């Protein structure tokens, strides 16, 4: 029996449903750019080696070049086009704009989507390779420039705008933290992946 090599799927992108037939070979990145005219997500390497194509899938950052579109059905996808709240920029976007966190702009959507996730991941208590002690009793390390750099390292910027990108992420994280401290929601997007998260929460129930 010949297997079908294409499927009719529905992608949920920025809260909107898009029905389309896809060749199974089509990556989410190519579906966005070539089929749905959502060209804000960039193709830098098509190999998972640069981060320009970063989007949020179920609230978590992912490289869309290695995500097959057919396998993304049923998942909540957020692209750079869905980050702002109408005309109001997300604090991360605003910080990139104000602090010149880019030059050519091609890595920027990926940097911004990644930064959104970095702030959420840190708030959820995830350690990083820059964290001196990963044991839970060590607590969550503060989001220092060194932590931001490590956590953002999956996003290359060939123009070398790293210094201002890190400043922008730090500023946006401070806005986020201030918002959380006041118990109000930031203008942020939903990131259910971290809260509901979590394979991990299953496991801790078994803790003796």
């Amino acid at each position, binding site marked *: 029996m010949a297997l079908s090599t294409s499927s009719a799927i529905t992608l949920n992108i920025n809260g909107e449903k898009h029905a389309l037939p896809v060749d*199974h070979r089509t990556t989410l990145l190519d579906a966005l750019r070539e089929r749905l005219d959502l060209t804000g997500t960039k193709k830098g390497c098509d190999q998972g080696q640069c981060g320009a194509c970063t989007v949020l*899938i179920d609230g*978590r*950052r*992912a490289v869309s070049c*290695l*995500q097959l579109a057919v396998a993304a059905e049923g998942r909540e996808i957020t692209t750079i086009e869905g980050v702002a709240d109408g005309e109001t920029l997300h604090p991360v976007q605003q910080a990139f704009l104000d602090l010149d966190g880019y030059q050519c702009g091609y890595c920027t959507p990926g940097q911004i989507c990644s930064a959104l996730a970095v702030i959420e991941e840190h708030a959820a208590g995830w350690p990083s390779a820059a964290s001196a002690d990963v044991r839970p009793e060590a607590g969550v390390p503060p989001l220092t420039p060194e932590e931001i750099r490590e956590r953002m390292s999956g996003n290359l910027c060939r123009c070398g705008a790293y210094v201002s990108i890190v400043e922008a992420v730090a500023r946006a994280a401070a806005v986020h933290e201030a918002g959380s401290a006041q118990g109000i929601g930031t203008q942020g997007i939903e990131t259910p992946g971290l809260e509901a998260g979590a394979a991990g929460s299953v496991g801790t129930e078994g803790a003796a």
Partner: protein
Amino acid sequence: MKEFGYQRVFDVPGAVALLGADPEARCLGGGTNLVDLMKAGVERPGLLVDVRELPLDGIEFTKGGGLRIGATVTNSDLAAHPEVRRHYPALAQAVLAGASGQLRNMATVGGNLLQRTRCGYFTDLARPCNKRTPGSGCSAIEGEHHNHAILGASSHCVAVHPSDMAVALAAFDAVVHYETADGPGELPFAEFYLPVGDTPHRETALPSGALITGITLPPLPVAATSRYRKVRERASYAFAIGSVAAALDVRDGIVNDVRLALGAVASRPWRALAAERVLTGGPAGAEAFAAAADAELAAAEVLPHNGYKVTLMRNLVVALLTELAEEAAR
């Protein structure tokens, strides 16, 4: 990329049935390695079995007090898990040292184990490579090999295994669990990866059509004082040129228990049993650490451009064990 079928599965029997029936079927987890290799033409599956909806995404204590980690747990969830960080910190560190935040969110534990080498000749269809095309030859031995194997390699292949996670798992005596149409099975980590020999294309002892369902970590008190260090050619987002996972328990200056595994030196994560034997029951000090490293690296075979790895691994082992010993003394 050639055309292929796609099937999402929701239970293990369904997955195993598909995998068993079609030799061209491959599991799709995060796709971070497989999809890349399909684009390169190295992997040419006829059917992708999407396993991410399988109920294998939990991390829980085993009855004995170890941890069972489901095959579809993402690398991120593994590294963020409080019990992993508490009882096996080197495992969390190893995972965090790999790839990027995006890739760790996608990549699964099962897929991580099955990663293929990043040898530049393996992914270039125009060059000979015994791992990709058996019998075609090894381009690296006479070519670019400064990041190739110094231990356990053969004249057929000198590629190294790229996983960081697997180095920690090797140190901690993990067991890989799988399922085939004939039922469940398991492989101790030491037997999971095959020696290179003259069959570098055969990388694991998994039976054909098997689905990795998870790994178990034994209860291992020494793992609570463990650490992973990775050296690479830039500060992040790069594969290792050398790494070490070490766990050390020192009592009254004597090594009570130790686990040591080396990364980026062989076709598989390299458990340093010879070094462990030298250390166990002996004094915890720089001299002993160096002697242990030398014992492990005595078998090293180097090529013209990778001899530095012997020095690197020796220094790394000594440095990491020294750090752990100093912390234990505090």
